[in-house]
């Protein structure tokens, strides 16, 4: 799947740009080489580097599912020079895509289990393909509980899919914001508090969480309070990355390279790192 020289990106065309929130855009790409278009595989949890030529490249998790063949999607939050450049692009622009890199959520292993998804802000992005995969294979999984949190209602990503998610069988979607606005009638609570409030049973359940470091830390505590074991909690780590192949050593944590051995880790693995996460 990898191009012969892993430093060289595939060329992709920007097909569509959707504003998810005021600072997050969903980019839908199509590879320009025809033979790859139907043949490009990647899994939930994996990531790729997107190049804004002339500015640089940065890693982003895939937010689409390869088998749906509806384009390769990434959620890009405007935060640095590369993301700012990507935000400037309009459909038709050429973007470099290098990947897929990293490991993925072992969704095959989770079959038959209840899945508890906890996402905060842009952290929801890599979890979206997980949700959609489960919904596509609904019968093979147990209950699905989703907590999607953000700072304000405007910052909730994938709002247009909330209906689909909420209406799926044995699926519960809980939205929460730190601070609502005049139209917001839902929860105003921090994500870890919602975890504690909902009290999902740890029995036969896998919790998958992604979000800002501070949210992860407290969510972890909340989950442990509910009786989740470290190996029942899965997250994807965010680290500065440059190569994606475990060479440049930026993402080195313990004997792991987040780009190669991760980004998906169980808390059992993470707790073995010497450095605090």
């Amino acid at each position, binding site marked *: 799947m990898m191009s012969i020289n892993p430093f060289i990106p595939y060329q992709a065309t920007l097909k569509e740009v959707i504003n998810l929130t005021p600072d997050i855009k969903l980019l839908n790409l199509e590879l320009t080489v025809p033979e790859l278009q139907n043949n490009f595989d990647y899994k939930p949890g994996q990531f790729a580097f997107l190049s804004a030529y002339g500015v640089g490249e940065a890693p982003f998790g895939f937010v689409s599912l390869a088998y749906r063949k509806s384009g390769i999607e990434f959620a890009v939050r405007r935060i640095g020079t590369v993301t700012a450049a990507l935000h400037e692009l309009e459909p038709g622009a050429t973007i470099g895509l290098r990947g897929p890199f990293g490991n993925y959520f072992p969704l095959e292993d989770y079959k038959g289990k209840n899945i508890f998804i906890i996402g905060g802000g842009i952290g929801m992005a890599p979890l979206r393909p997980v949700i959609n995969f489960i919904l596509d294979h609904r019968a093979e999984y147990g209950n699905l509980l989703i907590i999607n949190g953000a700072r304000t209602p405007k910052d909730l990503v994938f709002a247009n899919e909330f209906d689909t998610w909420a209406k799926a069988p044995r699926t519960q979607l809980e939205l929460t914001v730190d601070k609502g606005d005049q139209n917001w009638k839902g929860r105003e609570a921090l994500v870890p508090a919602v975890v504690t409030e909902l009290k999902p049973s740890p029995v036969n359940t896998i919790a998958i969480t992604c979000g800002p470091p501070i949210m992860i830390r407290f969510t972890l505590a909340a989950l442990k309070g509910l009786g989740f074991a470290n190996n029942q909690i899965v997250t994807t780590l965010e680290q500065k990355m440059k190569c994606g192949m475990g060479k*440049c050593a930026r993402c080195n944590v313990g004997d792991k390279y987040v780009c190669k051995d991760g980004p998906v880790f169980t808390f059992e693995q993470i707790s073995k790192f010497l450095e605090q996460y």
Partner: protein
Amino acid sequence: MTKVITKEDLLSWLRQLAEKYAIIAPVTSNGVTLYKSVGSSEIDKINLNFSKTELSPKNWFFPPSETLFTIVKDELPRIIPASVDREAILFGLRPCDAKGIALIDKAFLAEPADVFYQEKRDKTTLIGLACLSPCLECFCTSVGGGPADLTHLDILLTETAEGYITQATTEKGKQLLTGAPRQEKEIIPPVLPSLNLILAEGITELMPRVFNDAYWDRVADRCIHCNICAYVCPCCYCFDIRDYVSKGKIERVRSWESCQSPGFTRLAGGYDPRPTKGAHFRQRWYHKLLYFPPIFGDIKCTGCGRCVRSCPVNIDIREIITDVQRMKV
């Protein structure tokens, strides 16, 4: 009987080789000895009596900065990958430096291989010079190397009064040596120097125990995060990738980076998982002594002593290893 090449013959052989190969050899100018590309007319500039170059020969395979590819923006961006055109001979490297290259090999040639590195690596023959007068800060023998260790070389030359003893260890080396004007001579091999030993053994097992010790913060107090240790190290290979735009041409460039540089792990939003000076500093030693070994089988140090020599504030890996050994009790 040993096959020997005299100094004159060696130089004329190199001169001859320079017609076909790029020769990279130690050259001293302005009091600084560096591996530089020398043409056939410049062979005399090669310094055969240097002790240790300021920068390691890793520069040849992994230069301070290199273009990975160029983007031509006409209609659609086209990518032109960089490549090297000539075979090369890296001449005059010390066994420790050869080991440094071998250590980088482990990381860069692991799947998926770094093609830019691999290409240069494949096209280069390593000719070493045994180290008969090591520097005071050298400690290669403590980390599994030796002044005449030919493990990671294609050819090793050992200087004697009669000329250089030639030993080829690889096919590539043997092939190359066939063209060398050598004589069979009865030679007593020189006595190899003995180096100060430090106790590096078992360090990997000790490192986890002292991870949270205030020791790292205290040593980091005097570290100025200058990157010099990483840049002179023959086996440090952290890098950065960025785009370089000049006069309408876009290049994707890889350049050296060091885990000691201030923004090394800071994410675009400002979050830094390694926020303190001590944590920053510690990473270097843990990567060398703890994280690297289980993946690649060896601690990431050749004992060349360059970082010891060049560190402006005397952060001395020998001392750190010794201190960690002492801290176990």
